[in-house]
């Protein structure tokens, strides 16, 4: 197969896969309609905030004549101050996210992308600017951005475990990191450190497969990482279960501690569960930061 035809095939595949992903994300987002988040004070914006009496110094153009015509006092119509936020999202593209413990379940990456895109759709609808970390897709607003995000999210990485990238992180904005966090946690700590330095707060979402939580293996087994860089052989996998689970819990605890210290939010999500609670959690986590 020539590289050209290969490219075309992949492009078509992508073109076919994108609308379903986007549609699924829209569908998920439709379940949550919270409206735009105002700043709870008068300022620039489209939404009505309050009427107030005319002060000295207000120009005649600012008077709301419809309201003032009903009495003897002139009123000025104030609007709520609205400001667009920049949200940067990182979805782990690494090979480990492509694991699934059951053929009937989608890989972790699917769920991570769906959540990321649905969140983006929600934010874009709220007028925020959404972009991806890594600098390729800078934060922008508008519906067209959703399609650009979808296209960018479809990229798969080749490495075994992902490292969060901090390039393109908008200062004083918000950040969302979605990964299984199975790789080196030092990279995550570094990334959060960089984000903190730029005044960015945000949320960590750990997406795991139920098989990773259960460790339902037994017998003589050779475990390999998804890209094959790591290899481990055991005679009786069942014996390892408790120790594996202990390590997993320890890792989760470390992430939770990291989030707590840096003022971020952290939660865990299993692909065996529905996507909506996770999306709701993400949305609330971001809203708290606005």
């Amino acid at each position, binding site marked *: 197969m020539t590289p050209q035809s290969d490219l075309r095939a992949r492009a078509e595949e992508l073109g076919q896969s994108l609308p379903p992903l986007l549609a699924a994300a829209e569908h998920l987002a439709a379940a949550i309609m919270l409206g735009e988040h105002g700043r709870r004070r008068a300022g620039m914006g489209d939404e009505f905030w309050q009427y107030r009496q005319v002060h000295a110094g207000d120009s005649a153009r600012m008077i709301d004549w419809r309201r003032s015509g009903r009495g003897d006092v002139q009123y000025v119509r104030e609007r709520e101050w609205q400001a667009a936020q920049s949200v940067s999202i990182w979805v782990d593209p690494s090979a*480990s996210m492509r*694991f699934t413990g059951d053929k009937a379940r989608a890989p972790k990456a699917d769920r991570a992308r769906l959540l990321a895109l649905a969140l983006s759709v929600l934010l874009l609808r709220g007028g925020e600017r959404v972009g991806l970390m890594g600098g390729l897709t800078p934060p922008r607003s508008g519906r067209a951005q959703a399609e650009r995000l979808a296209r960018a999210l479809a990229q798969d990485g080749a490495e075994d*475990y992902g490292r969060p990238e901090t390039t393109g992180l908008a200062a004083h904005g918000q950040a969302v990191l979605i990964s*299984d966090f*199975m*790789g080196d946690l030092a990279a995550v700590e570094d990334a959060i450190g960089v984000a903190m330095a730029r005044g960015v707060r945000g949320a960590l979402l750990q997406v795991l497969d139920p*098989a*990773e939580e259960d*460790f*339902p*293996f*037994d*017998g*003589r*087994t*050779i*475990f*390999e*990482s*998804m890209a094959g860089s*790591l*290899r*481990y*052989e*055991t*005679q*009786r*996998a*069942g*014996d*390892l279960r408790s*120790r*594996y689970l202990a*390590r*997993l819990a320890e*890792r989760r605890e470390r992430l939770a501690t990291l989030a707590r210290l840096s003022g971020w939010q952290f939660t865990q999500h299993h692909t065996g569960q529905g996507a909506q609670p996770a999306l709701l959690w993400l949305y609330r986590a971001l809203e708290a930061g606005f």
Partner: protein
Amino acid sequence: MWTLGAIGFTSPLVLGALLALPLLWILLRAVPPAPIRRRFPGVALLLGLKDTDTETERTPLWLLLLRAAAVAAAIIAFAGPVLNPSQPKVTPDLPLLVVIDGGWADARDWPRRIERARLIVEEAGRSGRTVAAIRLTDTPARPEFQTAQPVLDRIAGLSPLPFDPMDADWIAALPEGGFETYWIASGLDHPGRSDLLAALQGRGPLRVFETARPVVALAPVAFKDGAVQIRGLRQPAGTQMEVDVAARGLDPAGIDRELARATLTFATGKTETEAALNLPPELRNRLTRFEMAGIRTAGSVTLTDDSLKRRKVALIGGSAGREGLLLLSPTHYLRQALAPVAELIDGSLVDVLKASPDVIILADVARLTAEENNGLVKWVDAGGLLLRFAGPRLAASDVARMEEDPLLPVRLREGGRALGGAMSWGSPRTLAPFAETSPFYGLSVPAEVTVKAQVLAQPDPDLAARSIAMLEDGTPLVTRKALGQGQVVLFHVTANAEWSSLPLSGLFVQMLERLAVSTRPALPEAADLAGQTFAPQQVLDAFGVLQDPTGLPGVPGEALATGQPGPDRLPGLYAGEDRLIALNVISPETSLAPAVWPANVPVEGLEAAQEQPLKGSFLAAALILLAADVLAALLVSGRLSGNLAARLGLVLALLGLAPTEGRAQSGDDAFALTATTELRLAYVVTGDMRVDGLSEAGLRGLGQQLFGRTTVEPAEPIAVDIERDELAFFPFLYWPVTADQPLPSVQAYGKLNEFLRTGGMILFDTRDANTPGGTSAEARRLQLIAAALDIPPLEPIPTDHVLTRTFYLLQDFPGRQNGTIWVEAAPPDAEQAEGMPFRNLNDGVTPVVIGGNDWAAAWAVDERGLPLYPVGRGSGGERQREIAYRFGINLVMHVFTGNYKSDQVHVPALLERLGQ
């Protein structure tokens, strides 16, 4: 063939491959199960963990054992194992003599004995040996060695005989030359058995076949301590066993019924047990026999004769009003003598006559009123025994002076005489020995019995014939005359010690016994019976069933007195001149002794151990083990996830549970609900799968026809086990009779009789097309089954029976065959009324319908409603099937509507239809 215990191997060399098993052991130990490769992101967390247990690097021990067992099973399978390989013949060229005991004890499992004998003879026939078969109860006759076929024909027709084998007589009749003997023995010892055994062993090898089933027998009952004592015997002694004994006799209507029941309990390790049955005299006097319930041998039946009967004796004293000393009372000694052995009645003569006593004793009663006189004459005429004693009153009266009184045997001289008193010459007289014609013949006369006074008889021509006891001077002491069917006996002395010392002696009691006043002892002495000939009234066959003795010769008393039945004296009830004697298989002295065989005689059970190749079983075991190994290997290597294991477990569980019978697990309530929520036709389970399936299909077909044609809309038929299930739910039972059906238990009979009494109906179908005379195996079985059922007299169905018109007008009642059917007999006084086409017959439903027309086969349909079996030929056959359905519908209608169609209201309509 090489044998190992009960298992032989056709190709034992293959077993050598078992030596290779250790090799497999080493091989398997060396090769651990292959690892699985898994992609798993969590591997990052596993890095650095160590395995705690390195044992599993090798195959686990249990898996190794499993595999070794699988291979071993396969190797053994190919070595050709055979269970119970046929034993090599010791001397295949000798002729074979099959000896069958054939006594009463064999009756308990006679078919199995005959089957075993048949197998033996057939096998001998296959190996070309000549065979002879003898039954030791036969009269000895030298047997001829023949080919197998005629012997087979002969033994098929043999049946046991109700007495002990005559082993000793056969010794002389054994065939010439050497032969091998197979002895099918009853397990009991008989006189002469060891001699015959020695004789047989002298001729060639001997092999014995015995059953372990105990022989149970009933000893003759005795009356002791106011109760009937029942004694049971068994051999060998086993664990605790209970046997019901039914006491049968005539009910007041003269029908043979069970009158009482006792339970004999054999304690563990005991061969004898006793039970007492307390019965009122009325009932006890009617007893005719005792039977062990459910055991069918002549030994389990004991007939009763006079010995159990207690005479009813009325004592009338002449001086009832006198206040005297007790010892002077005329009846005191009689009372003492008779109280233990007879029922005594007191009262006035007129009252006593109404109680119909067997014996009336008048002690010194001279005058009777005309009413009393007539009553007594009539009573004696009908068979009563009047026993009179003389005394002062009789001596003083003028009764029978001039002419003979009907109630006195002789004319009496006035005054009597006194001997040995102060005013007389003579001394008290003693008794003369009894004459041969006297009923007292044989009794010894004690010297101390003396007579001081007596009444004297007038000399008459027949005085000598009437005297049955005399004093030494020849004067009669006891006289007797027959009157009608009864007799009058006069003792010429008083019944107290006033005139003689006779009432004080033991002779007095014996004389009363001889006169049948008191109860006879159980076993008559040979001298008692000598010279008499006894005619058989009833005889028993070896199965304990009473047979008609017509054509059997009388038996001399001496032979009866031996107490042992034989070919010329079958066990049964024999009637002599004045007494009934029961000859039972078991006499009071009989004890059952086990047959003991010498150590060098091989003893086998009756069950022929069939050769059974085990190759298939072993191969199946190997396959199952290999299948288990597949699962185990998956389990060990971790490829068997929990979910899959659960599913496999479920499948295995289902396989294991599948063949269990649904009915067995459902409780009584479930059965009751099934039986009663809808109307169901029911059939009795026979145990024969084919017959049961046919019954179900037949009732299904009949049910469909009923559903289509009538308002009776039955659901699927239901199988009924009469031992276990409640019968009250069903109006109607179809009972196909098979030749090998087990007899119902006592409880089941109780339920069946209750069912019949409360309006249920049973259709018995022998399916044998009414073989003439009821001689088919099924018919004989039906006779056995129905013997204990409460079935009224039967008759072939009359043309005006209500069954002919309960729904359809029918005159034939065919199934696949067309024979007569039997229903309850019409009352004898049923008469056809003027202008009525039908008699007004039974006021109710006939409780049984018996026939052999194989109705179920004619009714049977498959799941699609098509007939299962052809009936007749062509359209005529289809017509017959239609009539069979109509019979079934009529029958069910009859069950439900009873005699409704006998109602006169319908007569005009029926007449009109009959006219067409």
